[in-house]
């Protein structure tokens, strides 16, 4: 009896919990929370100090100017007479994106070509590529942009006076080529082509099955193209049969008319706000619960659920907290969000509905030639697609500068592929270009992709040099905006949010491609 008593007391003492100030589980959490509070406190302190300081200077940050008048016009872009400052900033953002996207594409093509030339056995190509790289990457990009601006404005010809339409205009104001734009029937034409998906799927299935059964050439690809061509050609003339879609989508009227008009836009408009709030709440909780279930499943071993760490609990709790916070946002903090979703969803369907209808023209695409309206001034055609000297200087400067870096990255990536691969490809009888395309480059791209992403980020950020050559990008129009109203901090946050969004998007895309290129390990 006494023996049993002692063993029990030993057991009890070993199971006794340590005091709370020595319990490592508790201490870990206390440390986490203290750090969280310190970080939040620091942000709160910095933010409130900044706001107080600005308030003392009568400069309380405010975003009201976004709805105010623009007062200035951007040099070029999707809208040269914006109705509000917010619209003006949007025009600038689009111009920035255009330059960035075109710059990324052109610099990649040029960079890969120069990088290959740098490795070429041809002495001339090799030396020329070295010269290109060493010159351009060692000159600051701003200097290059200025250089191209001066070169283009001073060496391109004046436009000879006179009026008329031309196919190609090159002058010191820029270069203008014929422009193709979509016309009234464009969306109906697209819808008509979309009808072709059904026969394409059927045809692909048939040809794939036939090749699997009988061998020989797979005709799925050519068949797809042929069906698409047939639908595009027939749809060019017959796209008005799709105009019935206008009635289904609804129309772009005011909210009340839209409901009466019916269609998807009307149905969307008549969703009550509380229902939308409920749906959003269910959606976020569904996501949170789905995440927890998937997470627990991933921790399930054949022997049962693995032991969960504090970190695992924290993830699950965070999912629930985030869902709860979003619910708070939907119902209390920002109830307007639901009605905004309802309205903009309805707007979208109404807008789509407007693109269809019996009263629309049926020509899907149209084109215009550059036109010199007055030989004295309009030195490039306002009705053609025009690349102005200002945009060209920025683009050429950025592309050449970035291409010189990309060329070196490509060269490094190719050299990183073991020499044995080239020799093995040669031994298999592949030609040099085949070896490059099918053996070397696919492996080189694994090395190339991450630094290439950095270059894409750089070219996007460097577009802010547009102000040097008078192109209305987001930075330039933003400067004009805050020079009028003094809201530099507000404009800076808009710039930061915009460039952050661009950079993160590029990162996501590059990481996705990177993931696809990785060696799959089994």
């Amino acid at each position, binding site marked *: 009896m006494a023996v049993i008593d002692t063993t029990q007391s030993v057991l009890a003492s070993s199971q006794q919990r340590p005091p709370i100030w020595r319990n490592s*589980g*508790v201490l870990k*959490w206390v440390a986490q*929370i203290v750090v*969280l509070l310190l970080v*939040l406190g620091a942000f*709160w302190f910095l933010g*409130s100090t900044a*706001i*107080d*300081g600005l*308030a*003392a*200077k*009568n*400069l*309380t940050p405010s975003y009201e100017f976004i709805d105010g008048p623009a*007062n*200035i*016009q*951007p*040099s*070029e872009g999707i809208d040269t*007479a914006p109705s509000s400052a917010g619209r003006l900033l949007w025009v600038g953002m689009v111009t920035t994106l255009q330059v960035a996207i075109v710059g990324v594409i052109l610099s990649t093509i040029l960079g890969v070509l120069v990088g290959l030339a740098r490795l070429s056995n041809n002495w001339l190509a090799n030396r020329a590529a070295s010269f290109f790289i060493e010159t351009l990457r060692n000159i600051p990009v701003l200097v290059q942009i*200025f250089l191209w*601006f*001066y070169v*283009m*404005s*001073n060496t391109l010809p*004046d436009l000879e006076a006179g009026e008329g339409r031309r196919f190609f205009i090159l002058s*010191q*104001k820029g270069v203008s080529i014929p422009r193709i734009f979509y016309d009234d029937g464009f969306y109906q034409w697209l819808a008509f082509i979309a009808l072709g998906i059904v026969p394409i799927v059927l045809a692909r299935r048939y040809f794939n099955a036939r090749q699997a059964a009988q061998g020989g050439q797979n005709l799925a690809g050519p068949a797809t193209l042929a069906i698409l061509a047939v639908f595009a050609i027939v749809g060019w003339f017959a796209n008005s049969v799709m105009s019935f879609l206008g009635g289904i989508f609804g129309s772009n009227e005011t909210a009340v008319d839209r409901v009466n008009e019916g269609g998807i836009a009307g149905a969307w408009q008549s969703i009550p706000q509380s229902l939308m709030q409920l749906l959003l709440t269910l959606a976020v909780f569904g996501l949170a619960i789905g995440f927890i279930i998937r997470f627990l499943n991933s921790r399930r071993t054949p022997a049962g659920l693995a032991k969960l760490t504090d970190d695992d*609990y924290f993830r699950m*709790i965070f999912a629930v*907290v985030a869902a709860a916070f979003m619910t708070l946002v939907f119902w209390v903090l920002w109830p307007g969000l639901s009605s905004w979703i309802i309205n903009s969803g309805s707007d979208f369907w109404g807008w789509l509905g407007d693109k269809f209808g019996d009263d629309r023209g049926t020509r899907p695409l149209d084109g215009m030639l550059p036109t010199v*309206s*007055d030989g*004295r*001034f*309009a*030195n490039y055609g*306002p009705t053609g697609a025009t690349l*102005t*000297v*200002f945009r060209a200087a920025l683009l050429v400067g950025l592309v050449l500068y970035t291409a010189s870096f990309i060329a070196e990255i490509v060269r490094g990536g190719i050299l990183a592929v073991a020499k044995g691969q080239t020799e093995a490809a040669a031994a298999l009888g592949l030609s040099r270009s085949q070896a490059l395309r099918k053996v070397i480059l696919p492996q080189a791209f694994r090395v190339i992709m991450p630094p290439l992403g950095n270059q894409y980020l750089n070219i996007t950020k460097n577009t802010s040099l547009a*102000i*040097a*050559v*008078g*192109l*209305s990008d987001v930075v*330039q129009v933003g*400067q*004009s905006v805050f*020079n*009028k*109203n*003094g809201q*530099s901090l507000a404009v800076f946050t808009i710039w930061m949010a915009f460039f952050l969004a661009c950079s993160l998007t590029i990162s996501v895309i590059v990481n996705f491609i990177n993931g696809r290129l990785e060696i799959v390990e089994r």
Partner: protein
Amino acid sequence: MKNTKLFRLLAVLFAVTLFAAACGSSETADDSASGDDGAATDDSGSDDSGSDDSGSDDSGSDDSGSDDSGSDDSDTETVDVAQGSILAQVQDRGTLRCGVSGAAVAFSFTQADGSVTGIDADYCRAVAAAVLGDADAVEFIALTAAERFDAINTGNVDVLMRNSTWTQSRDTAVGMDFGPTTYFDGQQLMARASDGFSATSDVSEIDSAVVCTNAGTTTETNISELADTLGIGITLNTFEDFNIVTDGFIAGTCDVITTDGSALVGRKAEQQPDDQEWVIFPPTPISKEPLGPVYAQNDSQWADVVNWTVYATVILADEYGVGSADVDDALANGAPEVIRILGGEGEIQTAMGLSADAFYNVISQVGNYQEIFDRNLNPVGLSRDGSANASWLEGGLMYAPPAR
């Protein structure tokens, strides 16, 4: 075992939520408090100016200092003012930090040897002479149009003499104050005569032209609004640096450039190539551009120093004709107001926190308004006669309050 752990975590979660809620409410409370503070700041500002008007005793700086500490007790918002006037900071530092353009011919233009010349640069020197007794104790800081107001707001420059237009929104929303206008300017356009322009051309003739100007200025707003009003379409390219604007104009990429008329006159005088003829139009400027000093908001002591430096140069030039050559003579046996300004009696300047001979230093080292104007603006073909910059005695707008 696991249950207790979960329970503990839930308790922690609850604590975090409580904290978040508390944070949210405290933030809103703070917002309302800062609103009150803003009102308090305004009140203390008006107190300041009131005491300056009535303050007849010698200790001008002490006076405003006690005022500031008074407002300091009531709230912590007025730290900026409580740190002391910019005047005290400049006197401690021994140099005046003056924001200029560096690229505005005849206003503030950086010469090849690094010196800065122009009417704006001379008024920087005048303020330095008044505050520090040495017209050369100036640190010129070249600013772009887009940077200049942030430079004032952050205190990077003490005073901005950067041909800045006095507008309602800048005076109110942008958070700074404007001094007396030193040059009444107006926006004009410049184009090539070979494109069919003359000095009497109308703005509507620039239809479909490529117009270039500075980014972040009133000129881009003016020309945008005018083009909209006239119903003409222009391509407006705005550049950070006005040197690039004129280079684009010389090359022909820009058909028309537009900015303040005085700057165009200066550029035409300096840069017009032999094979081009440039014309400036329309005869009546398309906007009012009163240019003058700019300084931080709510510092009336510093504002008084800058303002009266300008007024002293105007009074002595237009009403008494006292220049740098005859300033000693005028101090000895001039009119009573002249003697007051030049420090013969001493009370007025010391009440402002300056030495008695502050404006004597200005006139002797830099000159009066007429001398500053003639030195900088006559060479590019601008004259006071018949313009808005003539004295009020001759039908112009240059007018200073009496010094007594």
